[in-house]
């Protein structure tokens, strides 16, 4: 069995794969300030779900911002490569991934065999990330998980001109004071975040079909706004938060298989020498 662990800034996710490339189990826990403890928790959780012992895991690949903290990892791979491979596993036709994480967002172009061709990452700025929505939800006194559903009820999107989180927050507060409907303001926020992301998409050039991953992909309002800009429905995996960990699990499997292949080769070389 092969384990992929994605240690992100907000959550730590893990995916367990079987030989025939079948997902056995996945787990998502909060990263918190102690990555080691989050990693331990996610591995325990996935072992319980899959009803296996840790020793049964053949290979581990870690990814994400805290990937170096996974001491059990046989290999470390960037989240850029893992997201590309993860989405390829789920939907091999996808050629562009928009990944919106808690603290950063990135656009990745994916090749036909699941490798990342190129990418664009947002600069040291929370605009276009989950953090942007979190700040806005807080300013409006709404649970972040409700934002998407509320946005879908909007009659129009209230324009938010600023993409900077700090300035946009002031703008939202002004709109609330002006008595604008909250659903319209939220739809406007989704539009603003989508515009920011579309700028990143344009920087590397879009290739369709496009997928949306990361925790923010669960927000239907964002999916709708981005689909509108792209002119076609964007693909969202059933569990968009585990795509990075899934890609890591695929790399874990490759790593193990390559190791076996090398051992096989050296065995046959030894036999030839004998």
């Amino acid at each position, binding site marked *: 069995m092969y384990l992929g662990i994605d240690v992100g800034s907000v959550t730590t996710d893990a995916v367990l794969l079987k030989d025939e490339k079948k997902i056995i189990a996945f787990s998502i826990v909060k990263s918190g300030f102690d990555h080691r403890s989050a990693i331990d928790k996610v591995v325990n959780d996935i072992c319980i779900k899959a009803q296996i012992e840790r020793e049964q895991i053949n290979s581990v690949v870690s990814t994400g911002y805290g990937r170096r903290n996974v001491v059990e990892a046989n290999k470390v791979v*960037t989240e*850029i490569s893992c997201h590309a491979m993860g989405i390829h596993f789920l939907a091999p036709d996808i050629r562009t991934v928009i990944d919106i994480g808690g603290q950063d967002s990135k656009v990745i172009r994916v090749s036909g065999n699941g490798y990342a*061709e190129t990418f664009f*990452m947002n600069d040291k700025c929370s605009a276009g990330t989950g953090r942007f929505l979190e700040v806005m939800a807080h300013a409006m006194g709404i649970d972040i998980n409700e934002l998407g559903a509320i946005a879908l009820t909007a009659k129009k999107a209230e324009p938010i001109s600023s993409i900077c989180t700090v300035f946009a927050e002031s703008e939202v507060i002004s709109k609330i004071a002006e008595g604008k409907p909250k659903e319209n303001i939220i739809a406007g926020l989704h539009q603003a975040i989508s515009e920011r992301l579309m700028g990143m998409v344009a920087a590397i050039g879009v290739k369709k079909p496009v997928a949306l991953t990361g925790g923010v992909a669960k927000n239907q309002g964002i999916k709708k706004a981005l689909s509108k800009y792209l002119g076609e429905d964007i693909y969202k995996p059933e569990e968009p938060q585990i795509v990075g960990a899934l890609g890591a699990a695929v790399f874990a499997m490759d790593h193990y298989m390559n190791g076996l292949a090398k051992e096989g080769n050296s065995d046959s070389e030894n036999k030839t020498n004998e």
Partner: protein
Amino acid sequence: MSSFISKLDLAVRYHESIGEQHMANYLRNQLDVLRNITEHKKDYLVTSYYVPGELLELLDVEVVYMERLAGLAAAWRIFDKPVFRATTKGFSACSCSYQAIFDLLIEDEVIPKPVGFVALSYTCNDAWMYCKTAAEKHSVPFYFINVPKTSDNDHQKHFAKQLEELYHQLKISFPAKTSMEDVVTASNEAQEIKSQIDTVRLKTPGNIIDFFKLFPLYNDLGKKSTVEILKHFKSKLESNASKSSEDITGILWLGVLPLYRNSIILDIEKKLGCKIVCEEMFDFGNIKLTRNIFFENLAQRIMCSRFFSFENRIEAMFKSIRDFGVKGIIHFSQRNCMFLPPMVPLIRKKAEEEKIPFVEINGDVVDPDYFDEERAWNQLEFFYEQIHWRP
């Protein structure tokens, strides 16, 4: 003695002690300029990178290339949080940080006020606009040439005429110092050694950091001391040539390098198992000068330089890629720079067409506060994966 002078002095002695005569001589020249304008109160002109050194070498005046002095101040960390400090003195946070540091050097009286500013519109709009504003602020003359944007014969002649006029204008205030013959001889000799250096480094790419440190020698063409520095540099490269490894993944570095962290080059080479084999800054144009068409030659050199047009840069870049067998490109984009970073989307596209992995790192080369090294490493690790895993 100011801390800037004492740090430069220490650097000169350090390089001498470890046998790096080329660096010791190069820094000593900068130290002499600094001493002349501060301790000996000699008049000086401020200028920007592409104003030809040969033209100014003809005149009896000290010349300070502002990007070079700002770079040295950044490398020796003369100011803590320079951009922030400059903003507290009214400098825009969105301006070029090289100019912010240079402005601080004058504001904090590390160097005295200059007697004039000389600028060309090429390469950088921000640079000449800063020179213009600073000249107004300090009530000193501003000498300026608006370089034509196209390089056909007529425009080149017009540009040459403007350079000649600039020389005559400056000659009114500053007497002649060096003969044109001596300047031409020194410039051509330097260009000749530079060509020999290129031959050596093409065969065995050595430590690239020296090329980053010495590329501003372009500003010193026409000086006899430059010939000596290049001779020492060439001999060092030749002696190191045998130590170079052949089996390497060669990387091309575009743009400049964080001056407070130039060791990042060695760290990248170590962590990614590659070698930065080439950069684009150590390029002097290789146009030899002649006395009777001196200004035409200078105009031609500028208009043929790799940054004059996107096409020039791309052509030179892909020549280097072929020559050095480069497997990937790293572009360091300077914060707020409106000169090189805007070309990145086109370079990225071209690299993709040529199937060469490309990564852009963003930061500030003179202010460490604006460089997120953790983020840069994440991008570099992906770059490594692209080079080694691409089927």
